[in-house]
C-alpha cells in the first residue's frame, strides 16, 4: 500500500472515529448534552486524535528511518573489492537502488515474474540491457554480488513497507479502542483534547528549529565528506577554482568569494545612496500625496521575483552595457572593454535596483522612528531642513541604517538568479567590473544541477560552499541585529 493511501485511510478512519465517539458520548448521557463533562465534539475529537496522531507520527518517523536502516544493512554486505577505486560506497548503493527500482518496474509491467526475479542469474540474464530497455540506465554490467544486494534491498524495502502498514494500522486500532472505550459522560474529554492540541502546537513551533538543524546537519555532513576528499586548506586559502570531472580539481572558495563581494559591493553602491535618499525625501520632504503615490510603487520593485531581474540583466542591461563599453568602433564610445553581456557590472547594477526598495523601506522606518521633537529643536535653532537631516536625524538613525545596509549586503551575497544569469562563469581575481566573474551561489547551482554524483568532491564542494554562504549571511544578520540593539538611542 502506498503512503498516500495509508494516509487517506487514516483520515477516513479518524472521521469515522469522530462520529462514533461523539455518538457514544451522547448515548451515555442519555442524549442530554448538559449531562456530559465536555461538549460532544470534544469526545469525537478525542477519538479522532487518538487514531491519527500516534499513527501519523510513527509513519513519519518510519519513512525517515527506513532508508537509512536498509542502506546500512545492505552496504555492510557489499565486499570492499567491489567498490571501484577513488569512489566510495555511495556509487555502488545508487546502482543497487536503480537495479531494485528496475526490477520493481519489470514486475509491475509484467515483463518478469516475481519468482523469475528471485532466481535471476547475473551471469546469464544480461540484466543491464533488459533494464536499459525499461529506461533504467546502468553504468556497468551487473555483478552477482550487486544483484544479490539489490534483491535484498528490494525485499527489505518491501518487507519494511509491509511492516510499516501493519504497525501504523495497529496503532490506529489501539488508539481507537482505547479512546472509544474510555468515552463516557464523565470522561474529561476537553482537557485531554486540549493537552493533545497543545502538544501539536509545540511540535509546529519546533519545526522551525528542526529546519535549521536540518539545514546545518545536511550541509555539515556533506562538508565533512568533502574535506575527507579534498584538503580544507586548499578550499579556504587556495587561489584557483578549476573543477574537473576527471578528478584532481582545484576547488577553492576565495575567487568565488571575491566575485560575490565585488558584485555585492557594486549593488550596494547603487542601492544605498538611491535607497537612502529616497527614504529621506519620502519621510522628510514629500507631501502625503507624493508619499502615498511613490511608496507603493517602490514596493512593487521589491515584489518582483528575482528571475525577472535575472532576465532583465541577461537580455536588456547586459547587451546595453556591451553597446556602450564594447564592440570597438561600432559601440557608442568606440571602446572595446567588454565582450560578453555577462559581467560584474551587469549583475551588480541589476541587483542594486532590486535592493533599492529594501534599503529605502528599512531606512524609512528607522528615520520615522526619530522623534519629531529633535527635528523641531534643530529647526528652531535656525538649521535648514537638510542640515537637520544631516546633523540630527541621520546621526540618530545611524545604527539602524547601518543595520539595514548590512541586511541588504546579506541579501546581495545570497542572491542567486541575478548572478546565475548576469554574472558569468569564470572564476578569477580581477578588479575590472566589465569582466564576467562568478559567485558562490552560481557555483552551487552549477555543481548541483544535472546528473550529480554525491561521491565526487566536485559535487560535494557545493555543500561546503553552501555552508560558508549560510555562515556568512547568518553572521551579517546577527551583526546587524547586534549593532541595532547596542547603539540604538532610546527616546522616550
Amino acid at each position: 500500500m502506498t503512503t498516500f493511501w495509508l494516509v487517506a485511510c487514516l483520515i477516513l478512519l479518524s472521521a469515522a472515529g469522530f462520529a462514533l465517539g461523539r455518538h457514544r458520548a451522547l448515548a451515555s448521557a442519555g442524549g442530554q448534552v448538559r449531562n456530559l463533562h465536555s461538549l460532544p465534539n470534544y469526545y469525537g475529537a478525542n477519538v479522532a486524535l487518538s487514531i491519527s496522531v500516534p499513527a501519523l507520527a510513527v509513519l513519519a518517523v518510519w519513512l525517515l528511518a527506513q532508508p537509512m536502516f536498509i542502506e546500512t544493512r545492505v552496504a555492510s554486505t557489499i565486499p570492499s573489492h567491489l567498490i571501484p577505486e577513488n569512489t566510495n560506497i555511495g556509487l555502488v548503493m545508487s546502482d543497487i537502488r536503480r537495479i531494485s527500482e528496475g526490477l520493481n518496474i519489470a514486475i509491475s509491467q509484467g515483463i518478469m515474474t516475481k519468482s523469475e526475479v528471485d532466481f535471476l542469474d547475473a551471469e546469464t540474464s544480461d540484466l543491464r540491457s533488459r533494464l536499459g530497455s525499461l529506461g533504467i540506465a546502468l553504468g556497468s554490467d551487473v555483478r552477482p554480488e550487486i544483484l544479490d544486494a539489490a534483491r535484498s534491498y528490494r525485499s527489505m524495502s518491501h518487507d519494511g513497507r509491509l511492516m510499516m502498514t501493519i504497525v501504523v494500522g495497529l496503532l490506529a486500532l489501539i488508539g481507537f479502542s482505547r479512546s472509544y472505550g474510555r468515552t463516557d459522560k464523565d470522561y474529561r474529554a476537553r482537557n485531554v483534547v486540549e493537552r493533545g492540541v497543545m502538544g501539536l502546537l509545540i511540535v509546529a513551533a519546533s519545526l522551525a528549529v528542526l529546519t535549521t538543524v536540518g539545514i546545518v546537519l545536511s550541509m555539515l555532513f556533506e562538508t565533512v565528506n568533502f574535506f575527507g576528499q579534498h584538503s580544507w586548506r586548499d578550499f579556504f586559502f587556495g587561489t584557483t577554482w578549476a573543477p574537473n570531472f576527471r578528478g584532481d580539481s582545484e576547488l577553492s572558495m576565495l575567487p568565488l568569494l571575491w566575485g560575490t563581494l565585488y558584485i555585492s559591493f557594486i549593488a550596494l553602491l547603487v542601492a544605498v545612496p538611491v535607497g537612502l535618499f529616497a527614504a529621506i525625501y519620502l519621510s522628510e520632504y514629500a507631501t502625503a500625496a507624493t508619499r502615498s503615490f511613490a511608496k507603493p510603487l517602490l514596493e512593487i520593485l521589491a515584489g518582483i521575483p528575482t528571475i525577472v531581474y535575472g532576465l532583465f540583466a541577461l537580455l536588456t542591461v547586459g547587451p546595453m552595457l556591451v553597446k556602450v563599453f564594447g564592440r570597438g568602433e561600432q559601440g557608442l564610445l568606440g571602446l572595446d572593454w567588454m565582450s560578453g553581456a555577462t559581467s560584474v557590472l551587469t549583475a551588480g547594477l541589476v541587483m542594486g535596483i532590486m535592493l533599492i526598495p529594501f534599503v529605502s523601506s528599512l531606512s524609512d522606518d528607522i528615520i520615522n522612528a526619530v522623534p519629531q521633537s529633535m527635528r523641531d529643536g534643530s529647526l528652531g535653532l535656525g538649521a535648514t531642513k537638510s542640515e537637520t537631516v544631516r546633523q540630527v536625524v541621520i546621526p540618530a538613525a545611524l545604527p539602524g541604517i547601518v543595520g539595514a545596509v548590512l541586511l541588504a549586503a546579506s541579501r546581495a551575497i545570497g542572491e542567486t538568479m541575478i548572478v546565475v544569469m548576469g554574472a558569468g562563469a569564470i572564476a578569477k581575481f580581477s578588479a575590472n567590473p566589465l569582466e564576467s566573474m562568478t559567485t558562490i551561489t552560481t557555483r552551487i547551482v552549477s555543481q548541483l544541477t544535472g546528473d550529480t554524483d554525491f561521491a565526487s568532491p566536485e559535487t560535494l564542494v557545493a555543500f561546503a560552499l553552501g555552508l560558508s554562504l549560510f555562515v556568512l549571511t547568518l553572521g551579517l544578520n546577527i551583526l546587524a541585529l547586534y549593532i541595532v540593539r547596542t547603539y540604538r538611542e532610546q527616546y522616550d
Partner: protein
Amino acid sequence: MSDITQGKHSGSLLTQSAHTKKRNAAETRFKAYGIAAIAVSLLMLMVLVTTIVSKGLGAYQQTFITLQVELLEKKLDKKGTRILADIKKVSTFGYAPLIKSAVTAKVEELDIETGLKSKQLVGLLSKGAAAQLRDFVVNNPDRIGETVEFRFLASSRVDGYLKGRVHRDSIANDKNISPEQLDLVDALIAAGVVEKTFNIDFIIGADASDQRPEAAGMGVAMLGSLSMMLVVLALALPIGVGASIYLEEFAPKNWITDIIEVNISNLAAVPSIVFGILGLAVFINYMHLPMSAPLVGGLVLTLMTLPTIIISTRAALSAVPPSIRDAALGIGASRMQAVFHHVLPLAAPGILTGTILGLAQALGETAPLLLIGMVGFIASNAPDSIASGLMSPNSAMPAQIYEWAKRADPAFYERAWGGIILLLLFLVTMNTVAVILRRRFERRW
C-alpha cells in the same frame, strides 16, 4: 549683536548674504538628490515594466499558415482497412510528403513565382506540423481520403519575420531561412495564407523541444506551480498558524522560546538557495523522493515560506486586544477555547493576507527549484491525476522561464518575457486580493 551693522553682514535683511546663499543652495541640492533618487527608482520600474510588456506581448501572438492537405489513403492506410493500429504504424516521416505537396499546391494555386525547392517550402512550417497532422488522422481515421484544411504553426523564423524580430539583413548567416523564403512569405501574407493571431497555446500548451520555439507554452509549468502551491498551502498554513498560536498565546517566557523565536527570524533571512540544498540533501538524496517532483518543490518552498507566514500570523494575533481573551476567559472558556473560538477568527483576515503574500513569494522563487531538478527537461505532458501531478517530474513557471532564457535560439527569449507577464499577472492578482482582504476585513481596536 553689533556686527549686524558692521563688516560684511551689513545691508538689508532682504538680500541674502553669501553664507545664507550657500546654505540655501545646499538645501536645494539636498532636496534635488532626494527627488533624483525617487525618480531613478521609478524610472527603473518603468523601464522594467515597459521592457517586459514590449518584449513579452509577442508571445501571445503566433503566425499560422493555412493549408489544404489531402489525406491520401495510399500513404496513410495502404490496406484501406481503417484499423487504428495500422494507421499508427505510419510515423511522422510518412506524413511529411503530404505536407510537402500541400505547400507546393498552395504556391501553384496562388500563382506565385518562386525558385524554391519543396524542402525549403516546407521549411516555412514548424517542425511539429507532421505530428499535428498525424494526431488529427489518428483521432479521425474516417477522414482519410478527404482534403482537410489545417492551420499549421509557422516556423519560428517566419514568426519572427512577422513580429519584426527577423530582418532580411539579420539572416545572412542563418541556415534556417533565406531571403527568397521571406519573399514567398510576403506573397503568402498578401494572399491571406499566412496570418498572425492570438495564441492560446502559449497559455495552456506544453513546453516544446529547443527545435520548435514556436510551439512552446506555459500550461504544464503552470500546473506544476499550482501543485507546488497546493502543497505549500496544505503544509505551511496549518504549521505556521500552529507555531504562531503557541509562540504568541501559550509559550512560557524561557530560553527555549527565545531560541525558537531567534531561529524563526534568522530563517527568514537565510538565502533561498540554501533551502534548495536542504531539499536536495534531505528529500532527494536521503528520502529518495523523485527528482523534479512538484511535491519536493512544495516541501522546499514550505520550509522557505514558513518564517514569513509565522511572522505575519503573529502580528495578526497580537493585534487582537487582550480584552477579547479576558472576556472569553471571564465567562468560563478555557484558554484553548478563548484562542480558537475568539482570537483566531478575529485574526483570520490578517493571517490570510500574510499567507497569500507568502504564497506569492513562493510562486516567484526560482533558485531552490534549480537544485531539485525542475529545470533542464521538457515538460511536455500534462499530469493526468493529482497524485501524478505531485509525484511525476514537472517544471514550474519561474523554472520554465529560466529554462527558456538559457536556450540558444533568441525566439525563446520572447517566450521567457511572455512567461514573465503571466507570472507577474498571478503575483499582481494575489497581492491585490491580499490588499482587498486587508482593507475589507481588517478591524482596528
